[in-house]
């Protein structure tokens, strides 16, 4: 397991544990008691460590290299997934995956940003940074869902839409804007889940929903803490402060009514128990779909628009 800087206290315990396990398998010693003791200590330490994470530590967890990504959830929550490729215009973006799948007897269209699991795949997936072809593929699949009256589930995990020459040439801005507009009008239920990083326009390009769910150790806001630090503090050194100021955690986003539900992660983060995470997420998706299915398409669209129209605090002075 990879440990983050602030996880040093448990890293040492984990190391100790694997040594004991190794000693036990090599020798005749019975170390079960010692290992059990250590496991208890690890659990205690974990509870302490993860009880009061700073916003920046949550950002770090959201980017943990062993964290489950979109395809993991698709394969562990749904059955019979068939991936569908291409935007029918210019290409097939590898940073966004999508297709049809079965959720306990109900067909669902699933879409999400996909990060790579190793160095080679990270490049192949462009680090989860989509190009216009990705947003247009996503929209094509959403229209497919609408045509056959299937609900949509989107998984958000991106450090941002890709800032590249070709992306601009093909209309990154138009692709995202079009999705915001078209997703508002979708007649089928839409659930979006922030499973890792929810950075800016790149995230909401597949994130206009009836219900937005957010995993406990993820972040969602207008800019990454690093870029925010570089622009507003004119230095890369203020990412921790920027993370605090941006109020980018699930709790903050829930308070702002931008996110509907916070999904609890296993202790230590989703990667400490991906299977349990997928199970929790599946329950939440099913519960929300049941609720959304009770509404008519018109009611859903009206509520969807009303939800976003209500976001924003301002002062309304008396007209003289």
């Amino acid at each position, binding site marked *: 397991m990879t440990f983050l800087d602030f996880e040093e206290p448990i890293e040492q315990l984990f190391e100790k544990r694997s040594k004991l396990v190794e000693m036990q398998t090599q020798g005749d010693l019975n170390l079960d008691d010692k290992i059990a003791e250590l496991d208890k200590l690890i659990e205690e330490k974990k509870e302490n460590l993860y009880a009061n994470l700073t916003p920046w530590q949550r950002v770090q967890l959201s980017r943990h290299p062993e964290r489950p990504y979109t395809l993991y959830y698709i394969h562990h929550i749904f059955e019979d997934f068939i991936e569908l490729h291409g935007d029918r215009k210019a290409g097939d973006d590898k940073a966004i995956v999508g297709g049809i799948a079965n959720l306990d007897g109900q067909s669902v269209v699933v879409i999400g940003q996909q990060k790579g699991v190793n160095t080679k795949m990270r490049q192949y997936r462009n680090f989860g940074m989509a190009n216009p072809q990705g947003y247009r593929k996503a929209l094509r699949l959403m229209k497919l869902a609408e045509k056959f009256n299937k609900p949509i589930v989107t998984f958000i995990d991106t450090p941002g*839409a*890709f*800032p*590249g*020459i070709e*992306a*601009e*040439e*093909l*209309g*990154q*801005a*138009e692709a*995202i*804007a*079009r999705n*915001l*507009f078209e997703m*508002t*009008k979708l007649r089928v239920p839409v659930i979006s889940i922030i499973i890792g990083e929810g950075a*800016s*326009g790149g995230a*909401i*390009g597949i*994130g*206009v929903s009836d219900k937005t769910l957010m995993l406990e150790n993820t972040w*969602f*806001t*207008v*800019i990454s803490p690093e870029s*925010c630090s570089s*622009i*507003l*503090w*004119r230095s890369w050194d*203020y990412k921790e402060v*920027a993370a605090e*100021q*941006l*109020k*980018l955690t699930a709790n*903050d*986003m829930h308070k*702002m009514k*931008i996110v509907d539900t916070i999904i609890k992660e296993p202790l230590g983060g989703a990667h400490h128990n991906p299977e349990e995470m997928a199970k929790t997420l599946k329950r939440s998706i099913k519960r929300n779909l049941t609720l959304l299915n009770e509404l008519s398409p018109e009611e859903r669209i009206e509520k*969807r*628009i009303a939800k*976003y*129209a209500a*976001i*924003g*605090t*301002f*002062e*309304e*002075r*008396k*007209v003289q």
Partner: protein
Amino acid sequence: MSNWFKRITTGIRTSPQEKKEMPEGLWFKCPSCKATIAQVEHRENLQVCSSCGFHERVGPKAYFELFFDENSRPKLLFDNLYPVDSLEFVDLKSYTDRIKEAEEKSEAAEAMEVATGKMGGIKVVVAAMNFSYIGGSMGAVVGEKIARSVDYCIENKCPLIIISKSGGARMMESGISLMQMIKTSAKLTQLADAQIPYVSLLTDPTTGGVTASFSMLGDINIAEPKALIGFAGPRVIMETMNLKELPEGFQRSEYLMEHGFLDFIAERKDLKEKIVKALKLLKI
């Protein structure tokens, strides 16, 4: 035009007496061709360089004067909305202080001003962004002004013209500003359902979350010549792609039109006539 409206209106077509009092001096030095032009002449020319055609950035009031018919009585809308530092955001300055400074510097209440009046005889709503107010950034007030403009246009069955000039979403409003991208786009679906025309005019510069939401969603997308229009900023693209320079004309109006994202480019002096013509044709 009523007196109070005239009073707050500066820029294009001001009287010679007012011009003498212009604080920025008597001369306009063109940043593009370096020509020096008398302010009087430059303003007559709608702040477009008479030597090279460079379009100087102008604020909402200038567009209001340019667009609304001279004999009509344009009325400001939603000018009682002010920003709130609801997240108590502090970077090198507090957002509260930034708001105060921006108000003083720009003499505006926010980064967008909305007015309604007749344009070529047609009642329209014009929502124009102000770049001197925190880089024309979009926060809750800009989002709300667009939302209310949409409602107003539906109620009064009149076209909406939005003039973009913005660095994107306002960081100091964090998630709230991000959501304004969805809010404005979502409201525009209602305008579309009501079959009311929406003209988007993109001016220098239009980038980030503003381009990636309402700016790109016009029934007709127009730009002034050579305006910087894009999603990512040029510097970010160079850093990401490890480039020393970008192709000539990259992310300029002409480039966007060539790639299919603009209906046409019009010089400032032709904007009104062309927009009115299009609106009339859409109506017949």
